[in-house]
């Protein structure tokens, strides 16, 4: 006879695990908050790491160059010396090179309309080249940069730079500049906002000679071997660095995140989140296990193998992981949404969600080990006590 309402989708160890947790709701909620908080902490710190990494290499990642030629000894894209334009012609003569574009990148001083100065990064581009253009343009047109004193900045830094709309004028290195457009979400790790302008205009502000630039961006002919061309460029051009685009992006990330210690600090915080999670899960699972020792002893007495008891504990850990992960990930995405309007980016791509899921599972399973160790020593004769 099977009465109505007595079926359950869970049976066996899954049923025991779920009921053990859900029976004490207060403790279960504490566990979930603990796991969720750990996921949040790990998610935000790792998301910051990804955000910083992408910020440090944003210009390189968004370029369409196969190779970057940089002044010798360049360690990151934001800080570099100067190259003579004759290098461009030398590069064009190397077999396999299709086109070579110029990119200016130098610091400048921005004088706000209402007074006060800010440091900015001047990005001089060639409008007739597709090697690098401002992306995520939300107001104005790139073509408007053709005008003599035209610049484009990012909305995120508009307040910091004291401008609000197209047409606002400022001074850069004591020369007039006028806002002709805004991008959105182009952050800089150095906190010196990118100010986009034509290469021609950029030469004026930092007082470069007309035959100077910062980088040369190389596009290869179809079928050309990038490694071979890179070696040829280094031989032909002498004292310069030649990077594959991806390598230069990685170098920029490495420089800012590792050599400055910023990445280590973020990784350490993420590790702390993992440890906090392990402690919380371990403690609450152990408390639940100790409370239910007579039941585990009964199971053992009636013939349950040790593996069956362990499965109950591991499933409790898995349930805590699943619910805690859901809660934590939701909180992470709230932070991602909030920070998308700020200077600091928390970026959580799908692969990072998978990493967080793996870390959460590891955290909960590791936390369950203490309980499993306790059950290994359980004495089934204690049921007669």
């Amino acid at each position: 006879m099977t009465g109505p309402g007595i079926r359950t989708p869970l049976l066996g160890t899954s049923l025991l695990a779920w009921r053990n947790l859900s029976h004490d709701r207060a403790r279960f909620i504490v566990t979930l908050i603990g796991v969720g908080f750990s996921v949040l902490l790990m998610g935000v710190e790792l998301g910051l790491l990804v955000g910083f990494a992408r910020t440090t290499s944003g210009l390189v990642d968004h370029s369409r160059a196969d190779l970057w030629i940089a002044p010798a000894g360049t360690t990151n894209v934001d800080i570099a010396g100067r190259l003579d334009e004759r290098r461009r012609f030398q590069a064009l003569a190397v077999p396999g090179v299709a086109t070579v574009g110029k990119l200016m990148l130098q610091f400048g001083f921005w004088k706000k309309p209402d007074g006060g100065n800010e440091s900015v990064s001047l990005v001089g581009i060639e409008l007739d080249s597709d090697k690098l253009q401002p992306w995520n343009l939300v107001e104005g047109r790139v073509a408007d940069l053709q005008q003599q004193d035209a610049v484009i900045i990012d909305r995120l830094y508009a307040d910091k730079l004291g401008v609000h709309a197209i047409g606002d004028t400022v001074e850069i290195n004591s020369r007039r500049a006028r806002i002709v457009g805004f991008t959105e979400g182009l952050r800089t790790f150095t906190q010196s906002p990118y100010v986009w302008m034509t290469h021609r205009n950029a030469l004026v502000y930092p007082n470069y000679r007309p035959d100077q630039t910062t980088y040369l961006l190389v596009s290869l002919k179809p079928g050309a071997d990038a490694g071979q061309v890179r070696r040829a460029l280094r031989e032909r051009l002498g004292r310069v660095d030649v990077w594959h685009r991806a390598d230069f992006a990685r170098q920029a990330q490495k420089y800012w995140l590792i050599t400055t210690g910023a990445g280590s600090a973020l990784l350490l915080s993420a590790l702390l989140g993992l440890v906090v999670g392990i402690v919380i899960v371990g403690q609450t699972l152990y408390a639940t296990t100790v409370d239910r020792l007579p039941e585990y002893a009964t199971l053992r007495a009636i013939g349950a193998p040790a593996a069956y008891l362990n499965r109950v504990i591991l499933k409790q850990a898995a349930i805590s992981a699943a619910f805690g992960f859901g809660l934590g990930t939701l909180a992470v995405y709230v932070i991602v949404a909030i920070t998308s309007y700020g200077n600091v980016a928390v970026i959580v791509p799908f692969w990072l969600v998978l990493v967080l899921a793996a870390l959460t599972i590891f955290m909960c399973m590791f936390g369950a080990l203490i309980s499993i160790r306790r059950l290994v020593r359980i004495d089934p004769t204690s049921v007669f006590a």
Partner: protein
Amino acid sequence: MSTPLLRLEGVGVTYGSGATALAALVGISLEISAGEVTLLLGPSGSGKTTLLQVMGCLLRPGQGRVVLDGRPLETLGAEALAALRLAHVGFVFQHYNLFPTLRAWENVAVALDLKQVPRNRQNAQAMHLLDKLGMGDRASHFPAELSGGQKQRVAIARALAGSPNLILADEPTAALDGKTGQGVVATLHDLAHRENCAVVIVSHDPRVEPFADRVLHLEDGRLTDDRRAAGNQA
């Protein structure tokens, strides 16, 4: 005479060692057969529970030999003993030992799950066992919602899951009132005869005796009496 299911030969159990050593069982030899109810009597501390633990493969004796269903226990490890318990033994405890977070039928289903009864048959089999013990209408109740007698019936249903051939009951009536206790023992007696399983009951309760086919008496860890009960209520 029924076939011997369990055989104990010169079994001895000693707790502790040296000057503090305590002999809980000394030279116990007996056979338990299917289809009969054996009552184990004796004062507190006489070794009844220890003997039950040995019979139930929960405790390996220090001396002697235990053979359950033809398998000697002395060489078996903890997991093998657990497997043997699962296959042959059903336990009924004094305090029921039901899982408080599970409904009555789920308590029985867990035992079926241990015996690897397919998931889609656990519900029906659990209900069948509860029906057999008159608990079908309480199947969806949690233990806290049941009376002592009802809990013990659920515990018996759990012990019967998977049709064990040996049921060991430790003071099954101790926490029950007289009438309920008698009902529980009568149920165990019926099961022994109907299902042809061996039932061993440890009890202080003299009202259990009329339901026993055989009565064993323990004193200071020694078997002092082993007699067939006359005129039981079978």
